[in-house]
C-alpha cells in the first residue's frame, strides 16, 4: 500500500509541478498510450473525483455543484469535479493543471462526453471526441474498428500539433509494450484468486491495486509496481474464507470501510469483480500490441466493459462465477453511473444466490449503513 500511495502522490506531483502538455482522459477504453508517447502528462478527472470521494471531501464539492444548478440526479463524479473547478481547482492533492486538450472516448460512459464538454468550456481547451461504436456481444466488428483506427490516426496529428512533438513509432511501441507487460502481471494477480482459499481479494483489495494500470499504464513505474505486487501476493499465506463472491459494480468510495466490513463479518472473499476490468478487458485475452499500435488501441477502446450489452455482461459474470468457483453474486448498483447501473438488476444469474445493493460511488448521502447491513446479513443468513 505504501508503494501505491507513493505512486499516486508522484502522479499528482508531476501533474502540479511537472513540465509538458496535459491531456484529460476518461478511464474506460481510453487510448492513453498515444498522448503518453507524445510527451503529454495524463490526467483522469474520474480518478481525481474518486480520490475526493475516498477522502470524504466529495460531499462538499457536490453541494457546491448543486448550488450552481446541477441536479441531485447528476453523476456524483461529475458534480464533485464541477464543484472542485468552482472552488478554484484546488483539491486535497494540490492544484490540478489546466488541460491543453481533452480527449473523450465514448465507450466508457456517455455522461463523460457532457462532463468533458463542460470542462473544455471552463478551461477554454479543445475537445477531441473518439467516437467508439457499441460492441454489444464483445466481438468488435472489423468495420467499427477501422472507423476507430481512422480517428486515432487523426488524433495523432492533433496531438502532434498541440504537443509540438511528433509521436515516434519507437516511443509508441515502447509504451504499448509496457502496457502489455503490466496487463500480463495484473491478470496474473487477479487469477491468483482461483486458489482456495484465495490469497487476494479481487474487489476490496483489487480496487486499490488497479490504480496504476488505470493512471500509469504504459510507464515503467506501472510495470515495476505490478511485478512487485505479484511477488507480494505470491508470498502470501491465504486467510480462511467462508464465502466466495463475485461483485458487479463500483464500491461506495465515501463509505468504503463500512461497506467492506459488511462482507468481512461473514468471511466473504471476493474472487472476481467487474469493476477492476472497467479499464479494459484483459481477462478475455486482450493485450496492447506494439506490432499493431493503432489497431490494438482501437480494440481496447471498443472492448470496454460498459460498451457491452446486458446479455454480454451477464455472460461475463456467469463465466467468472464458474472460473473462480464462487457461490454468490453481489450487484452493487450506484445512482451516479448509469452505464453501469441501468438494467443491472437483470444481471442476476440463474441458480446463483444474488444480493442487490444500491448506493453511490461519490455522493455520501446515498449510503445508509443500517439498511445496507440488514440486506447483507439477511442474504448471508439465507444463503448459509
Amino acid at each position, binding site marked *: 500500500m505504501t508503494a501505491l500511495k507513493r505512486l499516486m502522490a508522484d502522479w499528482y506531483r508531476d501533474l502540479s509541478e511537472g513540465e509538458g502538455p496535459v491531456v484529460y482522459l476518461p478511464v474506460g477504453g481510453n487510448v492513453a498510450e498515444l498522448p503518453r508517447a507524445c510527451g503529454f502528462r495524463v490526467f483522469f478527472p474520474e480518478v481525481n473525483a474518486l480520490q475526493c470521494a475516498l477522502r470524504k471531501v466529495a460531499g462538499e464539492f457536490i453541494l457546491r455543484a448543486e448550488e450552481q444548478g446541477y441536479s441531485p440526479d447528476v453523476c456524483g463524479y461529475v458534480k464533485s469535479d464541477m464543484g472542485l473547478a468552482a472552488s478554484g481547482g484546488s483539491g486535497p492533492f494540490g492544484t490540478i493543471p489546466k488541460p491543453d486538450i481533452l480527449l473523450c472516448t465514448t465507450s466508457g460512459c456517455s455522461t463523460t462526453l457532457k462532463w468533458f464538454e463542460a470542462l473544455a468550456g471552463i478551461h477554454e481547451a479543445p475537445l477531441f471526441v473518439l467516437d467508439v461504436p457499441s460492441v454489444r456481444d464483445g466481438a468488435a466488428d472489423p468495420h467499427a474498428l477501422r472507423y476507430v483506427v481512422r480517428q486515432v490516426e487523426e488524433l495523432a496529428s492533433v496531438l502532434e500539433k498541440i504537443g509540438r512533438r511528433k509521436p515516434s513509432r519507437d516511443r509508441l511501441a515502447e509504451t504499448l509494450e509496457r502496457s502489455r507487460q503490466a496487463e500480463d502481471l495484473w491478470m496474473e494477480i487477479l487469477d491468483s484468486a482461483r486458489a482456495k482459499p484465495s490469497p487476494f481479494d479481487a474487489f476490496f483489495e483489487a480496487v486499490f491495486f488497479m490504480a496504476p494500470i488505470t493512471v500509469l499504464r504504459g510507464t515503467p513505474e506501472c510495470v515495476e509496481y505490478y511485478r512487485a505486487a505479484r511477488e507480494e501476493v505470491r508470498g502470501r499465506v491465504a486467510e480462511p474464507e467462508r464465502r466466495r463472491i463475485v461483485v458487479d459494480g463500483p464500491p461506495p468510495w465515501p463509505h468504503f470501510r463500512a461497506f467492506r466490513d459488511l462482507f468481512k463479518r461473514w468471511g466473504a472473499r471476493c474472487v472476481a469483480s467487474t469493476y477492476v476490468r472497467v479499464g479494459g478487458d484483459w481477462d478475455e485475452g486482450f493485450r496492447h500490441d506494439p506490432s499493431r499500435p493503432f489497431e490494438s488501441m482501437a480494440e481496447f477502446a471498443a472492448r470496454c466493459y460498459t460498451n457491452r450489452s446486458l446479455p454480454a455482461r451477464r455472460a461475463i459474470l456467469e463465466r467468472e462465477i464458474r472460473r473462480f468457483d464462487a457461490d454468490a453474486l453481489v450487484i452493487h448498483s450506484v445512482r451516479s453511473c448509469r452505464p453501469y447501473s441501468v438494467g443491472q438488476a437483470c444481471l442476476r444469474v440463474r441458480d446463483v444466490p444474488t444480493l442487490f445493493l444500491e448506493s453511490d460511488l461519490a455522493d455520501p448521502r446515498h449510503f445508509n449503513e443500517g439498511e445496507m447491513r440488514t440486506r447483507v446479513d*439477511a442474504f448471508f443468513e439465507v444463503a448459509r
Partner: protein
Amino acid sequence: MIVAGVDAGAAAAKAAILDSERRILGRGIARTGADVVRAAERAFRAALEAAGLQEWEIGVTTATGRGRFRVTFAAAQATEIACHARGARFRYPATRTVVDIGGQDTKAIRVAPDGSVADFAMNDACAAGTGRFLEAAASVLGVRLDEMGSLSLRSREPVHIADACAVFVESELLDHLARGRRVEDLLRGAHRAVAGRVAVLVRGIGAEPEATLTGGVSADAGMVAAIEERLGMKMNAGPDGPFAGAVGAALLALEKTGNHVRTRD
C-alpha cells in the same frame, strides 16, 4: 426455558415472550421516538408485565429490527427477514410469501416449503412506500393511524396519488384537498400508492400463496384491501401482524437454547 424476542423497529419497538412449548406468554409495544434503547426496554418490560414474569426468568433474548445492535440485553441478533418469515409462519403455517411493511422498510420475503427464506427484496434507502409515508399522509389529513383503514374502506372515488414518496405526499395531498377531494378518497389513494410499491417487490421475488402481511402497517384494513386488490391475492392479516418480528426473534432464541427441536415452521 422462557425466551424473549425484541424487534427494535424504526417506528415502534415490540417484544414477545415465549415458553419452550412455543406459547406466547406476553407481548409489549412502545413508540421508538429518538431513543431506540429505551423503547426496546419499555416494550420488553411491558411484555414481562403482561406475562407476569421477572427479567431474571428470561433465558435468552434475541433482537431484530433496525436497532437490533443497540438492544444491550439481547444475547444474539437476527435480521428482520429471518424473524418475520418465522413469525408469519408461526401464525399462518402455510405462508409462502411474507410482506412486511414497517415504519421505514418494506420487505417481500419468499419462504420455501420447509420454512427457510428462499429470496427477499427490500425498498431502497428512501421511505417511499413504507409506514412513514402513511404516517405523513395521516398527519396531513388529520386522521389517527388506527382510523385510516376504516375510513379508506369507505372511499367511493379513490384519488390517484402519483408516488408513494413520504416527502412529496404532503404537497400532493394538500393540493387535492384544496380541490375539494374527500379525505377517505385520498386515504384510499395513499393505500393504493403503497400497494403499487409493494407489488413491485412481491413480483420481483415471485409470490406464491399463501401470503401474509406483517409489520406495523398490517393492522390497517385499508392497506390489506389495497394490496389484495393490486396483487389479486388474498392476504393473511390481523392484529398479531405488528408482533411477527418479535415472535420470530423469540422463536430463534428458542432454537438457540436447544430446548426446542427446530421444526422449520
